[in-house]
Each structure stands twice: as C-alpha cells, then as structure tokens.
C-alpha cells in the first residue's frame, strides 16, 4: 500500500496516536463513570426502595432532578460550579463526576424498579426464616432482581459512552475532540467523522455483547 500524503489512509496513520489517546480518554472516562455510578446507584437504589421516608424523599428529589436535566447542562454546571467553590479539578474529573452523578440516578431508578418487581412473598418468606435485612437483600432479592436490572444497566452504560462526547465541550480531549483536532489539520471532515462513528459503533457493540453475556450468565432465574 502506498501512503501518499493527502489520502485518508496516510492521514489516519499520521493521526493514529492522537486518535488512540482520544479513544483511551473515552474508555477511561466511561469506565470511571460506570463504576462510580453503579456503586452509588446501588446504594441510592436501596435507599429509594427501603429507606426511611425522609431519606427516600431526598433520594427521590435527587433522582428526579438528575433525570429532568440535559447531561450537557449538568456537565457545564459541575465544571463551572466546582471552580466556584475553589475545588480545583481538571475538566476530566469534573466530567466524570457529572456523568457519574447523572448515571447514578438512572441506576438507582432501575434498581428500584427491579427490586419492586420481585414478588413481595419472597421478602416475607426470607423474613419468616429469620434472615437479617442485608442477608435478605443479598441472598434473596438481589439474585432475582439482577436479571431485570441488567438490560437497563447495559443501556445506561451505552448512554455513558455516548455521553462522554459531551466532555469535549469542557475541553477533555476524548475521541470526538481528538477527531475534531485531526480534522482541523487536514480538512477531511467526512472521512474522519465516519471513522469516529465506526469506533463508537465498535465500542458500543462490545458493551452490548458483554451485556448479552452477563444476561445469559444470570438467566438462571425465571418467574
């Protein structure tokens, strides 16, 4: 293959490190956000389902607030707002924080929906045989709820990966901004945007496959 300057192959090969760094930023920001959101979302979800009512109200407010706002506004608000309180964080972490906060609300809501879809008799039966509350959750409710929870959770993960593009607005050089920088150098607009589309498709396809594998793994339970 002859690589002439000005051809797409040449330009893509020249830009490989820039694009790779962008993709890496996309992957790390999404992974951090997914992990934080899942952990926080599980806690919030339990609070939303079984919490003492003032706590439940607080979490409900948080969830509705997050779900009624565009992610972009959330990211910008976090970025400028944190600086106001002299919390000096890089755009990268402000973005992760905002995305995780957004996804937490979704995970919490999904968990609530999944847990409440488990028949009430299960909880009563677990109570009757004298399990403590954490044990009731862990051994009885969670194994049944997890199957209902997985598909929306995978959706949330995909949303996060797509949401990381919004971090380009506050200057995190993730895949989209890296692509734009490459385009600014060689003006091959269509080619490089299509390349970015392709990369996002591949990443999302991988996540969907992992999700499908997890769903198969947890398909033991039927009701």
């Amino acid at each position, binding site marked *: 293959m002859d690589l002439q300057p000005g051809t797409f192959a040449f330009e893509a090969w020249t830009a490989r490190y820039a694009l790779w760094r962008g993709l890496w930023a996309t992957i790390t920001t999404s992974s951090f956000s997914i992990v934080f959101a899942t952990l926080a979302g599980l806690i919030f979800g339990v609070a939303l389902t079984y919490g003492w009512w003032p706590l439940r109200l607080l979490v409900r407010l948080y969830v509705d607030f997050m779900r009624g*706002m565009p992610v972009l506004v959330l990211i910008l*608000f976090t970025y400028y707002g944190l600086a106001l309180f002299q919390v000096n964080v890089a755009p990268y972490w402000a973005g992760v924080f905002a995305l995780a906060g957004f996804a937490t609300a979704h995970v919490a809501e999904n968990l609530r929906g999944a847990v409440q879809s488990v028949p009430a008799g299960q909880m009563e039966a677990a109570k009757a045989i004298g399990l403590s509350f954490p044990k009731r959750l862990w051994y009885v409710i969670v194994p049944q709820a997890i199957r209902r929870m997985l598909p929306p959770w995978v959706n949330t993960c995909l949303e996060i990966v797509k949401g990381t593009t919004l971090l380009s607005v506050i200057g995190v050089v993730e895949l989209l901004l890296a692509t734009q920088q490459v385009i600014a150098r060689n003006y091959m607009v*269509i080619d490089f945007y299509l390349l970015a589309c392709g990369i996002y498709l591949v990443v999302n396809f991988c996540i969907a496959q992992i999700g499908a594998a997890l769903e198969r793994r947890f398909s033991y339970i039927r009701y």
Partner: protein
Amino acid sequence: MIQYYFDWSVIWRNADRFAYALGLGLSLAVISLFIGSVIGIACAMARVYGARWLSWPVWLYVEFIRNTPLLLLVFFVYFGLPELDISYLDKTQSFILTLSLYAGAYMTEVFRAGLASIPKSYTEAAKAIGLRPWQRQRYVVLPVMFRITLPAFSNNLISLFKDTSLAAAIAIPELTFVARQINANTFRVMESWLAASALYLVTCYVIASALRRLERRYAAIR
C-alpha cells in the same frame, strides 16, 4: 468555603433571552419529533411489512443512529454536508435535520413495537368486513398503534427537548447557550446555571404531566 452572594438581577435582565431560548428549544424538539415520526412510520412499515431489501437498510439506519453519540451526528451533519456541496442549510436547519434523523431511528423502534403489539385478530376482522389493505392500515391498525405508542411519544419528546441542549455546540441560541453566555459575561455562575436547570426541569415536568393527561384521555383500548 467561600462566600457566594446571589444576584438574581442578571437573570431578570436577561429574562427575554431565556424566554426566547426556551421557545426555540421547544420548537426544535417538536419539529424534530414531528419529522422523526413521519420517518419512523415509514421505516417501521418497511421493517414490518417490507421485503428483505427494504427492511435491512432500515435496520442499518436504526442501529447506526442509536449507537453513535448525538453530538457526533450534529457535527457530522453541520460540518460534513457542506463538503458534499450541500451548503444551503443554516445551523438551525442542519440541527433540525440531525435531530429529526435521530428521532426517526428511535420512533422507528417505537412504532415497530407498536405494530407488533396489535393483536392479529384486528387485521383479520378488518379483512373480514372487506377493507382494502390501505384501509386496514388507515382505519384499524394506525389508530390503535398511535394509542399504544402515546407514552413512548411523550418520553421521546422529553428526551428530545433535553437533547436540544446540544444545539449550543453549534451556537444556536437555546437555553444552554444563553446560560453559558451569561455565565461567561457576568461570572454569575450559580444564577445562570440554576436558572437554566430550573427551566429545563419545569418544562420537562409540564410536558410530562400534560401528555399524561392526554394519555389518560386516549388510553389504549384493551
């Protein structure tokens, strides 16, 4: 902890811009939902009743749109189309085009599910009383499908309204753009973003409750 003094006069001075921005965002969402629904119906029909050569391009379109970030699509249409010598779209039109294509993919899925959930006996009954194929669609299938898909409609409208915030990235003066500009010009960080968030929240809430009322009125016949 620093002291922060709220100064809401900035917001009141710019109330007209906020109002205009809110109207612009809403109209972008409504127009895109409308065009997207037309695309969605056509594609769902192609998917459900069409031949194989018709249904797999639709599948490709839906999967492509649903797995690419919206912001990338916005830039792709806004910066990419002029390279193909399609340069007569201004930024608002290009954003509406993007959002319509985006909504179209989601509405295709919604309508496809709606069509699939219509009991087969409906079309059989329509056939039995001698309706022609297009009459069956027009008088029996589509009205029922719209009632079934009404909740998904309102969900989509709300999420499209939230997605109009991305128009700020190509300098369309909607809510996010205005909030960002006021933030940059006056340094009233909290006020500008709180005002924008509150407007988004209240609008989403109003849309949701208004449409829920509509849903109750036209609830699907079971």
